């Protein structure tokens, strides 16, 4: 074994620090990978907590409907106004329905829904799991030989996989209605042309892209948010106690939002 140098130079310390950070990131990725594996495995374990699943669908899904509704309505109306302003220059107002619906179904619907759910439900899930970790509740589950993944995490994962695509569908419909309100009712675009344009341009492929995105985003956000909470005591620089939970919750929302945006580009690039 090589001995550590008693007085390492600045360069050596820098390289050592880089290596240390790289090892930490790799360890963290590995930990999160194993966490995802056990979370999905927990879905297949008996007995599945059906009541908890219903409760989580209520929290992640039903509880998010108001925020999704208002975000979708305002986004759709802005799209309607902006779209009208741009298309009007070319005398192509008739394409407004097509532009609004495609933008919402393929991009804004899945992305904004995931970001809203990450901010509202993801942060709450991360804080809940984090507090359970620091107050030894997860240790207590393990000591009772109760699998914490099956008991705590898997119902949240399945609830997110059910809720986020449905919320995305609500977002799309409300958003298109918002675009209709702004474009047709406020700016006077022909209503028949609006819906005809939408019907002609939106294909099954576009819908499929939106659905795939919403499933991937759901998995990403529930994985990152619950995973960061679960490992709250292992995250470097998070501190201890309540401070660690607050820091890790912020980190989880930021990380899941960035992951959603990065994967949005990747999925679009692959599937478009």
């Amino acid at each position: 074994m090589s001995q550590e140098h008693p007085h390492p130079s600045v360069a050596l310390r820098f390289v050592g620090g880089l290596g240390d950070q790289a090892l930490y990131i790799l360890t963290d990725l590995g930990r999160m990978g194993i966490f995802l594996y056990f979370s999905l495995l927990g879905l297949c374990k008996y007995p599945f907590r059906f009541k908890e699943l219903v409760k989580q669908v209520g929290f992640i899904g039903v509880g998010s409907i108001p925020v999704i509704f208002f975000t979708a309505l305002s986004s759709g109306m802005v799209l309607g106004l902006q779209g009208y302003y741009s298309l009007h220059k070319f005398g192509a107002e008739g394409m407004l329905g097509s532009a609004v619906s495609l933008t919402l179904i393929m991009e804004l619907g899945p992305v904004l829904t995931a970001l809203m759910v990450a901010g509202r439900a993801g942060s709450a899930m991360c804080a809940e799991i984090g507090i359970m970790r620091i107050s030894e509740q997860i240790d207590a589950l393990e000591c009772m030989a109760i699998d914490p993944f099956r008991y705590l995490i898997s119902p949240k994962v399945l609830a997110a996989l059910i809720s986020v695509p449905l919320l995305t569908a609500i977002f799309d419909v409300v958003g298109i209605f918002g675009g209709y309100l702004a474009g047709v009712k406020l700016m006077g675009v022909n209503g028949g042309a609006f819906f005809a344009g939408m019907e002609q341009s939106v294909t099954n492929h576009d819908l499929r892209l939106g659905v795939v995105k919403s499933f991937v985003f759901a998995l990403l956000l529930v994985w990152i948010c619950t995973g960061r909470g679960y490992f709250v005591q292992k995250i470097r620089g998070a501190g201890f106690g309540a401070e660690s939970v607050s820091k890790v919750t912020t980190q989880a929302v930021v990380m899941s939002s960035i992951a959603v945006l990065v994967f949005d580009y990747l999925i679009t690039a692959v599937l478009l």
Partner: protein
Amino acid sequence: MSGTDQVVPAAIRFVEVSKSFGERGRRHRVLDQVSFSVPKGKTTVIAGGSGQGKSVILKLILGLLRPDSGQVLVEGRDVAAMGYRALQEVRMLFGVLFQGAALFDSLTVFENIALPLRERTKFSAEEIRQRVGVTLEQLELAGHEEKYPAQLSGGMKKRVGLARALQLDPAIVLFDEPTTGLDPVMTKEIYHLFTQTQRRLGYTAVIVSHDIPQVFTLADQIILLNKGELDVFTEASRIPYSTKPNIRDFARQVMGLEAGEE
């Protein structure tokens, strides 16, 4: 070593266990080649100052931490070398009362106590209701079953934690600082409950505590930890005669005992 483990078979054995914490270059060794036995059906008290590794010993026993080296044998099986499934089997032997009781905030007192029965047994809802009802009576918690942990006093939380720990009739019960944060009356009550339940159920008890010397009244065996050294005693009065200098220091500084003061 104590004489008790020569007569009574060991429920738990530590064989040259070492455990360190901290990051590379700044590691702090909490346990250094530690060996001892916990005799079956008896009460072992693990005492020592803060940060001396008392709670680490409990986590090693439960497989929540893995030792850097050495063996942790529970009923003859090495917990440190076990896979997940085998560990789950071994954990079925244990009941644990955590320092902060570790009750589930979102569950009522009844649901907390019923949880191990619901998750780990095939009892019907009626059977679970009856069993939990009996426990609630025994631990003087009747009438509080619909309350949430946040609505309970510290002593009541500990009693609910004890009720939950005893639900599956464990062979070994681990107590992590069972009287921390309690007033002297509550402390006495918890010790009384402990004596009562142990007499009735006959479990092996491991109590980690810094409630010195009161907790020694419960002990069949005392394990003292100080500055990396460990010694085992059958009587508290033998502590000042330890061959280990750090343990003698502990007896003098914390307990105010000197050799020859028996």
